[in-house]
């Protein structure tokens, strides 16, 4: 009897432990709609937000290619819209595999802080989602482009004799029909190549909550191509959390020299219009040192680049005739111009400190930063910048000079 009572006590204790875990939500995978991408637009019909979800259409995926479908919902807050979306979906939405979030320009202009609140608070979305700004009118239309390509693919397949999913050939992965995954995959390769910068939710948080740096986000636009309907192009510049302007591809590339990049091609040339020497960046390092004299702020920007000589698209043999030193000199000159130009342009056009000069002041001299902080956006426009380029060419890629036998 006593033994039975003891056992009962143990069982009861264990059973009550079970209720403390919050892990009791047994749910079958097929009863959840896996969200892979979200787009946030301004709402219609009085709602503040209009959200577009790209979800995996597991039921349609009998062939090798996985398809997706798009779901739209309005709401007065992000969570409201997400909640409303479940009304249209027959299942729960599963956010943990969401890869990307696209904001429309209008939303970005209103400010990201209020939009990001739900993403940061809710336990389901991850901090590793990619953040983008749409260059098109709305963000939702980009996700819908994927639907078009899927249908196109199906038609193409039917014309090609009904072999499989058609459009899947030559594309990596079986998720090629899913636009969000396409964008996320493209970002991985583009950001290592130095064409764009991958920004995850936690990166955005770090910049927004940190001192002395303004946010940039990569932009997406319609590429008008079948296979890759959305391309990553240009950079949105933010003032605080509000959209301030757009940097085109060339400017983006120069701006990204401030980041650590790898395997990126950097073109240099004797005159700016004729850049025919390609250098492959192996390692780059930018150090910014703020200097303050009599209330005047200046920045010393050291750009150190180690690269290999990748290509010279000229009939002559410039490297052999003039040597590494000469190429390095040209590269230094080009680099100085490029960096100078992008900094000047950002100072002039936006006044947004996307280079993090303010952060450097904050790090070096926090007391001074306190005074500067409130007026930094005006001050930033007048900061004098001194650029010290330092390009080293590590190798030329050829054992023998070009043209010799």
């Amino acid at each position: 009897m006593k033994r039975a009572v003891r056992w009962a006590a143990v069982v009861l204790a264990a059973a009550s432990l079970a209720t403390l875990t919050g892990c009791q939500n047994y749910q079958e995978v097929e009863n959840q709609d896996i969200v892979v991408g979200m787009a946030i637009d301004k709402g219609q019909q009085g709602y503040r937000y209009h959200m577009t979800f790209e979800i995996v259409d597991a039921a349609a995926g009998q062939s090798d290619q996985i398809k997706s479908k798009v779901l739209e919902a309005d709401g007065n807050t992000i969570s409201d819209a997400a909640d409303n979306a479940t009304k249209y979906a027959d299942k729960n939405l599963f956010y943990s595999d969401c890869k990307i979030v696209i904001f429309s320009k209008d939303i970005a202009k209103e400010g990201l802080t209020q939009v990001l609140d739900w993403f940061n608070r809710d336990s389901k979305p991850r901090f590793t989602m990619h953040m983008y700004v749409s260059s098109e009118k709305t963000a939702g239309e980009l996700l819908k482009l994927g639907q078009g390509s899927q249908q196109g693919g199906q038609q193409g397949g039917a014309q090609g004799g009904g072999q499989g999913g058609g459009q899947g050939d030559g594309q990596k992965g079986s998720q090629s029909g899913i636009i969000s995954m396409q964008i996320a995959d493209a970002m991985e390769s583009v950001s290592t190549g130095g064409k764009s910068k991958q920004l995850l939710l936690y990166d955005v948080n770090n910049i927004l909550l940190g001192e002395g740096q303004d946010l940039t986000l990569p932009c997406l636009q319609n590429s008008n191509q079948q296979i890759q309907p959305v391309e990553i192009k240009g950079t949105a510049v933010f003032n605080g959390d509000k959209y301030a302007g757009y940097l085109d591809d060339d400017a983006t590339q120069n701006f990204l020299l401030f980041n650590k990049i790898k395997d990126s091609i950097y073109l240099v040339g004797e005159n700016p219009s004729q850049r025919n020497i390609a250098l492959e960046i192996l390692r780059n390092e930018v150090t910014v040192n703020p200097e303050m004299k009599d209330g005047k702020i200046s920045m010393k920007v050291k750009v150190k680049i180690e690269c290999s000589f990748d290509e010279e698209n000229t009939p002559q043999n410039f490297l052999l005739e003039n040597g590494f030193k000469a190429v390095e000199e040209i590269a230094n000159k080009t680099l100085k111009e490029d960096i100078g130009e992008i900094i000047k342009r950002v100072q002039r056009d936006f006044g947004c400190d996307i280079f993090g000069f303010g952060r450097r002041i904050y790090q070096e001299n926090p007391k001074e930063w306190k005074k500067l902080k409130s007026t930094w956006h005006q001050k930033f426009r007048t900061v004098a910048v001194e650029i010290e380029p330092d390009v080293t060419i590590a190798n030329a890629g050829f054992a023998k000079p070009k043209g010799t036998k």
Partner: protein
Amino acid sequence: MENHDAFGSAKLPSEQLESNLKYVFNLFQGDDTLRKREITNTGKQGYKFCLIYADGMVDSKLMSDNIVRPLMRYQFPEDCSDLVDMVQTSVVCANSAERTQEVEKIVQAIVYGDTVLLIDGSADVLILDTKGWAKRSVEEPESERVLRGPREGFNESLLVNISMIRRRLRTPDLKLNMLTFGRRTRTKACLCYLDSLVDKHVLEDLKKRLSKIDIDGTLDTQYISELIRDKPYAGIDTIGSTERPDVVAAKMLEGRIALILDGSPQVMTVPFLLIEAFQSDEDYYLSYLFSSIGRILRIFAFYVSISLPSVYIAAVTYHPEILPAPLLISIAQARQGVPFPTILELVMMLIVFELLRESGGRMPGNMGQTLSIVGALVIGQAAVEAKIVSAPIIIIVATTGITGLMNQKIKGFDIASRFLMLAMSSVLGLYGFLFANIALLSLLYQTDSFGVPIMGRMRMTKLQDYKDTYIRAPWWLMLKRPKGLTKNVTRQKRSDAAK
């Protein structure tokens, strides 16, 4: 309690051959295989003898040549004061001839294939060793095959089995104590150990537990093993068992005690450490590198086989976010249209696998192919195509099954803990999986085998303690015997010449 076979110290009733014969046959009333062979010596005195034996149990050639013929032809001297002594020492040619009056001994001798020689005019009889029943020859054990190493396995004869051990341990240090189990079966058994290595406490403990056994029959060592084990409800074996004499010898050399039971090729050894379930005798006959890889694989496979289904169920139904997106999507696709919840699918398929395994083990060899076709095609392919189960389940069940088959010695524990873990993680997810792990570990760590923890001594601080656990260290490094089994730990003395 009724007691059929105990005759206590009863003795044969008379010196008359006829009445003794009648008495013995009376004891075996209803046993038509009991034979008698009456002999009259051709000499002047015309002594009368009678042999009693059980048909089929004796070596008949030995009987006729070495016992019947001498008894007939022997010329007894005129003055023969003690006829029984005369017959015992000078007439019969049997390996052993024991003189006795006790009914108990006579009965035991007859049923064990010996022959009882009754002599007219004496209450004493001679028990002659004429055992000659048919027995299986020494073969390689089916369940413990090896690529390299001795091919000998135990058979059902106690004496043959003892001889196989004795041939491997040629020392007077080898002690062999004979015991008898079973009120009705009277099964002979032999306790073997090396006196200088054995832990006396373990030996005492074992003897005490063995003496408490009071059962009518013991047909296999498993009867005894289950009667004397620690934690009988735990489901984990705390007593080792093998069919290979080389394994028994090796275990005795580490200080263990072996019990051989007549009629069973399985020899049990105590104390038992859990690691023994993962050790194979082949480990010691193959290169240490290869053996170590094999042993790590076996331990890994055991853990996979108990935990894979529960990890799957926890990951897919409770924590899908820990799966990579492509995997999650492909599982979700496979689950489309499957009518049962994942947990039911998994339990169903695991049971189907156990059914296949069980029927495979019971069925005649030439039907195995049918089974594999039914198993692979019907269960594997058709069930998936008919959308009764999803494809990932088949992969999980197949992996679980294959890894489970790797460790036959703890099969029961394997299956039981697999379903425990599955039950826990199907109600609590990974949290439940961890609970089940904790439960299993605490069970294992509090289980002893004759005073020795089956997980090994906790204070395993020296490398030497690990030489024969997860890996099999090269022989030149195995300087000591496993900890906790014996006080005499030095296995080999480090000599530089040897290496």
